[in-house]
């Protein structure tokens, strides 16, 4: 993706909002969203010469989002096993954020692959 700052901003703000929404629900998710938000936030810092710095922060924060969703889905799966259907209350926020994360992650991965292709082409020229 081209405009990395906007993506980072979206991730950090969205995760902060979801963190607040989760405060009364589940402390683990509060920690998760806080971590995601901080990860995205550090993406803004420029104290380095690493060219993939911003991409790295985008990818890891979205990966964390995906992991958190996987955790939630596992939980649902396991309570299916113990057959407490009525007790299942999926955490919508985690799932919404997880889906957004997947989209962002794939987009960013494709972008990096494109750069790689270009670099290869340049090299072979």
């Amino acid at each position, binding site marked *: 993706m081209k405009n990395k700052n906007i993506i980072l901003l979206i991730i950090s703000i969205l995760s902060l909002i979801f963190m607040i929404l989760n405060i009364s629900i589940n402390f683990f998710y509060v920690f998760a969203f806080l971590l995601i938000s901080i990860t995205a936030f550090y993406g*803004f*810092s*420029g*104290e*380095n*010469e*690493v*060219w993939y*710095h911003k991409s790295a922060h985008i990818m890891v924060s979205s990966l964390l989002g995906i992991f958190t969703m996987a955790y939630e889905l596992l939980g649902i799966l396991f309570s299916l096993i113990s057959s407490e259907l009525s007790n299942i209350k999926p955490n919508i926020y985690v799932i919404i954020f997880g889906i957004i994360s997947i989209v962002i992650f794939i987009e960013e991965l494709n972008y990096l692959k494109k750069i790689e292709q270009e670099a290869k082409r340049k090299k072979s020229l």
Partner: protein
Amino acid sequence: MIIPLTDLFLGQKGKIISIDLKEEDKNRLIAMGFIPGKEIELAHISPFGDPLVFKVGDKKIVLRLSEAENIFVEVEYKIESLFESDLGKHQIISVCGGHHFKEEMRNLGIREGKIVTILGRNGHKTLIEVEGKKYAIGKGRAQKIFCKKVAQE
């Protein structure tokens, strides 16, 4: 310019020139890939600034400052904060800090790629000239602005 490994900037690359350690440690480092003449990059900094991780080829190796400061590399330029730099012309490499701080600096004309001239020091303040205007920058701020020296014409 030859500097010790500890003066590299995160992500900056240099060429290994010499390893001034005990023969034994030196041999071990060489066998681990710290071969003079090879390119080396500062890859990670730990939470307390010590140790550091360096990347040589595809290898990443952890070194403490006490060893790293005795290994010397050749770099095209050294990156320092505005606060530590010598007087003269410098090119801004990066401005660190919050969005607000960056915005403020941009308004002064301090942003990546720009040339600033350090005119002098006044206590903890650094006097600089950007785009013909002069400013005095406090220590805390100057330490968040990184630049490299530009050769004088």
